[in-house]
Structures are given as C-alpha cells and as structure tokens.
C-alpha cells in the first residue's frame, strides 16, 4: 500500500515523527497488524476511507488542506442513521406493546385538589416555598421586609442569576470532573439542590416531617458537595497517573 510500513526510522522529518519510547510500546505498524475481529474491520474501513480521501485530494485541483476529519457522507451519516433507527425502533416498540391509557379529558370547570406545575418546574415551585427563610427584622418591629411570595420570586432570580454567573467564574478548561474537584463539587451540589428543592415543592406528598425536609433541602447539597470533593480529590492522583500514562507513553488500551 504505502511505504510507511517499513521498519527504518527516518530522522529527516519526513515521517510521522512518532518513535516508540521503549521496546514494550507497539509501533504503529505493529498495531496495524491486528488481524482479527472488529479491530481488523475498523482498521480496514478507516484505512480505505483515508486512502480514498487521499486519492481524491491528489486528483483534485484544490489546494490540499491539513484537515483531520472524515466526510459527512457516508461516514457520519451511517452512524447517525444507525442511532436514529435505534430510537425510532424503540418508540415504535414501546408504543405498540405498551400503549398508554387515554383517560377522560380534564374538567376545566373544577379546580383540582393539588395544583402543581409540570415536574421539570418543581424546583422553581419549591423556591416559592422558602417563607421560613424570610427574615423578620427587629428594626421593623418584627415584621418582614417583603411578603413571602415576593421573597420566593426573588429566590428564583438569585438561583437563575447564580447559574448564569458560573460560566464567568470558571472558564471550564477541565475536561473531567477529577481535574477540578472544587467545581465538580459545586456542580454536584447544584444538581442535588435542584432535586431537593423539587422534593420540597411537593412536601405534602413526601412521607417525611416537613421541617426536617426543609432542613435537608439545604443540608443534603452541602453534604454531597463535601463527599464529591473528598472522593475526587482522593481519586485525582491515581486517575491523572493513568491518564498521563495513556496519552504520553502511547500505550494501547487493552
């Protein structure tokens, strides 16, 4: 095929420049010689695609660009079609085998006993129930500065504002939670808080003392953040060691 498979190492800069650091590490040519199963098939597929791409570039009049990618058709599209077929098939299967019951239409003339938003808005609904946190100021003679409902709306503004600020506080250069345990812990506490505040919004349905639930709403996120920080901080050394060994020593994964 190409003459890159020969064993001589060229030092004039014309080769790939990748030299095995020791005897254990397989060279690219050795890795290509995987002869069985999926690895062989994958290699042949991508090698053929690369070869076709190379031939097309050499035949065309366009200036050759240094682009490391595969064309959308067929490579990307085949994957997308496979994924789409899977999910469409799942929809058809579930809707055919387990069709949902269609109950009577809602009676718009009667107010339901329990008024709740859709489940994905429970967190916002729970923030409206933070009345116990509304401080009673002694300077105002024990009265509150604002009504509980105003306080709940302001709590929404504060939470949404904090979520909007986070990208500016941390630019997010880390690609894995283990690289920045503190920010992973902040994110984890946010996720847990969104769950606990959602549980608070349906506190009459939760089998728990509502005062205890109110306290847990704010305690559980802090506890989970602490655990996340501790675990990731402990994991970090071993994890980064594995990562460095994989990327810098170029050992093939098993």
């Amino acid at each position, binding site marked *: 095929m190409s003459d890159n498979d020969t064993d001589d190492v060229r030092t004039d800069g014309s080769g790939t420049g990748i030299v095995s650091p020791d005897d254990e590490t397989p060279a690219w040519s050795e890795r290509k010689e995987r002869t069985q199963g999926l690895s062989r098939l994958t290699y042949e597929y991508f090698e053929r695609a690369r070869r076709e791409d190379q031939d097309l570039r050499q035949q065309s009049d366009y200036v050759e660009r240094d682009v490391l990618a595969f064309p959308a058709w067929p490579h990307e599209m085949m994957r997308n079609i496979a994924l789409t077929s899977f999910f469409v098939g799942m929809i058809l*299967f579930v809707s055919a085998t*387990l069709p949902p019951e269609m109950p009577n239409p809602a009676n718009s003339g009667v107010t339901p006993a329990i008024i709740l938003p859709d489940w994905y808005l429970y967190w916002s609904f729970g923030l409206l129930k933070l009345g116990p946190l509304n401080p009673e100021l002694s300077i105002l003679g024990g009265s509150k500065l604002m009504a509980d409902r105003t306080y709940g709306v302001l709590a929404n503004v504060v939470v949404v504002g904090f979520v909007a600020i986070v990208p500016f506080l941390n630019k997010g250069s880390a690609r894995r939670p283990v690289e920045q345990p503190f920010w992973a812990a902040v994110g984890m506490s946010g996720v847990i808080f969104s769950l606990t505040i959602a549980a608070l919004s349906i506190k009459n349905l939760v089998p728990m003392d509502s005062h205890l639930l109110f306290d847990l709403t704010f305690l559980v996120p802090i506890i989970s953040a602490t655990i996340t920080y501790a675990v990731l901080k402990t994991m970090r050394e071993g994890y980064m060691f594995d990562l460095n060994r994989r990327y810098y020593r170029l050992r093939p994964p*098993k």
Partner: protein
Amino acid sequence: MADEFMKGFACLMVGGLGWMTIKGWYNTPSFEGAQLTGELTIEEPTTFDQIALFMGDAFFWFAVLGALTFWVVLPLISEFQTYLNERSA
C-alpha cells in the same frame, strides 16, 4: 473492560425491556396504581399466557444474572487469575 461493561449493560437493557413489556401486559391493572408489580390481571392463563409469564421471569433473571456475570463474576475471575499468575511468577 469496556466490552465487558457493554455486554452486561446490553443484558440489563434487553432483559429489562422484555420484563417491562410482559409485566405491562400482565401485572399492571390500571394506569393509576401499581405499575409492573401489581396483581395478575388474568384469571385463567392460556398456553400463550403461560409462555409469556415464563418469558417475563426469564427476562428478569437474564437482566439480573447477565449484568452480575459481566460486571462482577467475570472481572473477579480474571482478577483472581492475574493474582494467581503473579503469585506463581
């Protein structure tokens, strides 16, 4: 290792999907109430019903045992073998 995880996950998903389907047919009396774990909805099972009920149990144990096999048992065996090899070496 990733392959072993995927095999166990495939067992769990295929078995869980089949179990959910059978239980949705035979063990879900109404939309509001016990889902998939309710009482049997038929009085006298025919042969096909008996086959389906057996398949529901088979799917359930396929999901549980498949995931356990690929996530716990086989890794334990391979770990044990490497331990034995290191010990003998």
